[in-house]
């Protein structure tokens, strides 16, 4: 047998990249999205104004940007705000959001689930329960079907 058959390099070729019918998402210019304003959110947390902090941290979500740092930063910030809430206030916090806000919150919650740290999962689960009762199953479906997410 010829020795050429030993080479397995062809197995690492991604054939889908060469498919001319490959579906490519539309590129939305997301270079300007910087995520929520860190200074503003920090100051609101320190003041104890958690409702405002929640609204502020859900502004400017870095959905379209390809910069992973911005996304990680935003996620950390959101987690900070969510942990700062008292358990009894979580419900009020969710009620203060509109439909799009609840969808966005759910996206952050699932993003947070992906990288659990010490106490984050417990906090996120609390928020998840309240967000689910406000947004319903449709909210979770939208997290699953979103092409571009936080």
């Amino acid at each position, binding site marked *: 047998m010829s020795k050429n058959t030993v080479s397995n390099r062809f197995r690492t070729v991604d054939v889908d990249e060469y498919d001319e*019918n490959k*579906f490519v998402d*539309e590129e*939305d210019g997301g270079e300007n999205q910087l995520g929520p304003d860190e200074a503003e959110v920090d100051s609101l947390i320190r003041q104890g104004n958690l409702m405002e902090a929640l609204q502020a941290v*859900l*502004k400017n*979500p870095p*959905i*379209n940007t390809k910069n992973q740092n911005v996304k990680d930063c935003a996620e950390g910030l959101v987690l900070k705000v969510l942990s700062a809430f008292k358990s009894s206030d979580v419900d009020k916090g969710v009620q203060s959001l509109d*439909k*799009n*806000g609840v*969808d*966005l919150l759910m*996206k952050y919650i699932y993003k947070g689930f992906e990288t659990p740290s010490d106490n984050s999962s417990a906090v996120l689960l609390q928020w998840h329960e309240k967000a*689910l*009762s*406000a*947004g*319903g*199953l*449709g*909210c979770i*479906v*939208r997290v699953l*079907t*979103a*092409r*571009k*997410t*936080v």
Partner: protein
Amino acid sequence: MSLHQFLLEPITCHAWNRDRTQIAISPNNHEVHIYQKSGNQWVKSHELKEHNGHITGIDWAPKSDRIVTCGADRNAYVWSLKDGVWKPTLVILRINRAATFVKWSPLENKFAVGSGARLISVCYFESDNDWWVSKHIKKPIRSTVLSLDWHPNNVLLAAGSCDFKCRVFSAYIKEVEEKPGPTVWGSKMPFGEVLFESGPSGVSGGAGDGAGGGWVHGVCFSHSGNRLAWTSHDSTVAIAEGGKTSTISSLSSETLPLLCVSFITENSLVAAGHDCYPVLFVYDGTKGSVTFGGKLDVPKQTSQRGISARERFQNLDRRATSSETTEQGLESLHKNSISQISVLEGGKSKCSTFCTTGMDGGMVTWDVKVHTHTTHYTHTQSDTLLYHWDGRRNGHMGRQGTHTTHYTTHTHSLTRYCTTGMDGGMVTWDVKVHTHTLHTLHTHTV
């Protein structure tokens, strides 16, 4: 409403004949079974076996009494009844992937087939050669076409596809028809022209939305053809009005994705999907908003009986709550996802009955009483519809004790009733009770 359980296999698709005495269904295999209504029973009268692959779409032309079927074997057949036997005629679609959906045009001189080959095949009959010819609409579809609907002018075709968009194409075939007049969707309509394309998710504004969207499962033109509704896999339902560019109103619903949708009046639509019950949506043209109108499946209220201590612990063990509801399964009539809705009577402008079939093999016919009137009691809408009160103790989707707003209908024999709920509120409702209903509406206890 009445449920008929045809079989245990999913009904992939169904079609009714003109006087609604016969139904053609496909029991998730290569065949079409035609059932004839005799009294209260359905008797199988014909079996259409020609396809080599699963049948994905059936449509029955009411006037010319022809059935067109399409399947995963990349073929479509047009069936005609001759001497009590259905004879097939092969249609060469020239697609290299499965067909997914088929629909006769309003005048029944052509039909459109959606396919996984990222194109729509519009077929018409060429009498010189005595066979069906197909023309393709390819651009700019980038993925499987899931659903189609014709505009009443027989030329425009709406298509929902897996590339997250809903589009309106022109399917004008000069060999079989005259040049169409202008419509709200446009005036120049050469074959294959895109007259409308929905945005990524069709949402007007909103933080973070506009990116994403989901596969468009169902599309439907309204009776006049001026409005187009579609449901998408990201649990949204959207309506666009032709002419007003980028006026897309959409509603992110709280339910699981809806698979099929149909207009029942010019302002309201009924949709159903993975949640196994049909829901009503109401569209307000002046405000450009879509609102949830209510669920149309009021389950029988089980009698409130005390729950024994043993059952309480059993519930705790099984479901982690000691709640009293002994839900054996779904309370809706359908026990699995609903895949298709068809209007039975009244057309899309004043539908009075519609039918749903689903993956549980059942077919349910639903009655709707729709009236337009000008006086209003609780809302400022001029078009009002029947609503159903969800008698379940849990209320809607987690909103404990809140009442959803509904639009009420009034007829001569109107009844009023009052509900008091766990939120301490009291609301008076004007209700029209169904003639065929098996369920009665209950009041909560305060």
